[in-house]
């Protein structure tokens, strides 16, 4: 029989994590438990899903902090998420369906860091930081640095993802989201796009453009961001930004879609985001 540890406090969880670096950290199970009968049971499991200290949403002047074990359903019911981060809210609303939203957590999404993780492009576009804790240390890492490769992250063997911190979008910021999945719900993404543009006096003063499912990890398109920065949105700008995306992104073929489709759509949705500013 495998060991199943259900810490009651974060301190206890961190202690167990440090004592059992080989144990699986379990949150809502929506990824870990997929077709579980095909695999042997893990040696041990640390369940952080119900940890109160890792749940909930906390708003400050500077940021919105989300506990890593907060299920998506709780975020959907949060007015502050809806009003402050409408693109993240829209992204979460399209994850799975109600059953997945009740169990899936943002911490789990970050921990897995699959290239098709549905919240991840938004986190990149929003300059989100991941809070990592171990018994002796707390650190914050930008999500763009946290994910280091295909399902690879900076998470230490003694660390837990405890929260995500998202800076409050500055005044005049427009946020965008588009998911193209195999269908409208219960869908693995074929392409995702998220963007954040701050417009000051008719000019883009800050730009973030992020894509999912087009590389081994969620990624920003920095060259496109730089091109738009300081510019007045126009149809021509949209076309130019789209061209940058086309040369910068190299998606792949798989059973769900084709490289050429992914590329075309990534280009088109980024173009559409910019057009929306015009």
């Amino acid at each position, binding site marked *: *029989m495998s060991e199943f540890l259900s810490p009651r406090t974060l301190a206890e969880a961190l202690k167990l994590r440090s004592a059992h670096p080989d144990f699986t950290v379990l949150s809502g199970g929506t990824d870990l*438990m*997929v077709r579980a009968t095909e695999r042997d049971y893990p040696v041990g499991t640390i369940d952080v899903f119900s940890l109160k200290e890792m749940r909930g949403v906390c708003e400050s002047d500077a940021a919105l902090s989300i506990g890593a074990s907060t299920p998506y*359903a709780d975020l959907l019911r949060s007015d502050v998420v809806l009003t402050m981060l409408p693109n993240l809210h829209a992204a979460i609303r399209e994850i*799975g*369906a*109600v059953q997945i939203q*009740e169990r899936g957590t943002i911490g789990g999404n970050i921990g897995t860091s699959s290239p098709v993780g549905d919240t991840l492009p938004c986190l990149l576009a929003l300059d989100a930081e991941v809070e990592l804790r171990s018994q002796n240390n707390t650190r914050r890492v930008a999500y763009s640095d946290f994910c280091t490769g295909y399902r690879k992250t900076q998470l230490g063997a003694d660390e837990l993802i405890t929260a995500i911190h998202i800076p409050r979008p500055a005044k005049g910021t427009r946020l965008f989201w588009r998911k193209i999945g195999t269908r*409208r719900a219960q869908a693995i993404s074929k392409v995702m796009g998220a963007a954040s543009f701050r417009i000051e006096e008719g000019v883009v003063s800050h730009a973030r453009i992020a894509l999912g499912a087009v590389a081994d990890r969620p990624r920003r398109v920095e060259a496109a961001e730089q091109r738009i920065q300081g510019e007045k949105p126009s149809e021509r700008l949209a076309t130019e930004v789209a061209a940058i995306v086309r040369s910068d992104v190299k998606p792949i073929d798989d059973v769900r879609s084709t490289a050429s489709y992914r590329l075309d759509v990534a280009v088109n949705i980024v173009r559409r985001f910019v057009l929306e500013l015009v």
Partner: protein
Amino acid sequence: MKIRMQVNGAARELETEPMRRLLDVLREDCGLTGTKEGCGEGECGACTVLIDGKPVNSCLVPVGQVHEAELLTVEGLSDGELLTDVQRALVEHGGAQCGICTPGIAVTAESLIRREKNLDHARIRELLAGNLCRCTGYQRVVEAVAEAAAKRGGAGDE
């Protein structure tokens, strides 16, 4: 691991591997075969049960996570011979055909109409998207849930 839980209002205690799927524990250990398996990966929703009132895919929940939780399965919906209004509407509107997805739909729908008012057809379609049905094309299911919701005080579409 020793698991204590409330299943359909009754206390249950069992000793089992904590990483077993709740679905298997319900079907094999509790004899509650109304909860079905269609995919084993959280896609079809046939295994939907309520954990503390929330609909979840029981194929994705290790039983270790429901220690001291309150569970409701399809067997716990109706009170003896009394069908709930959702169940009754599903039969009346033809929302159950082969019936394999029906327990999951009945459970999900119950949780939806308990929690949300103003369930119009579009909203019902969004909220039932985690329950795949291959027989009905969903029309009869949506109509049944809308009617049951309207009866409970929400406003259905028709």
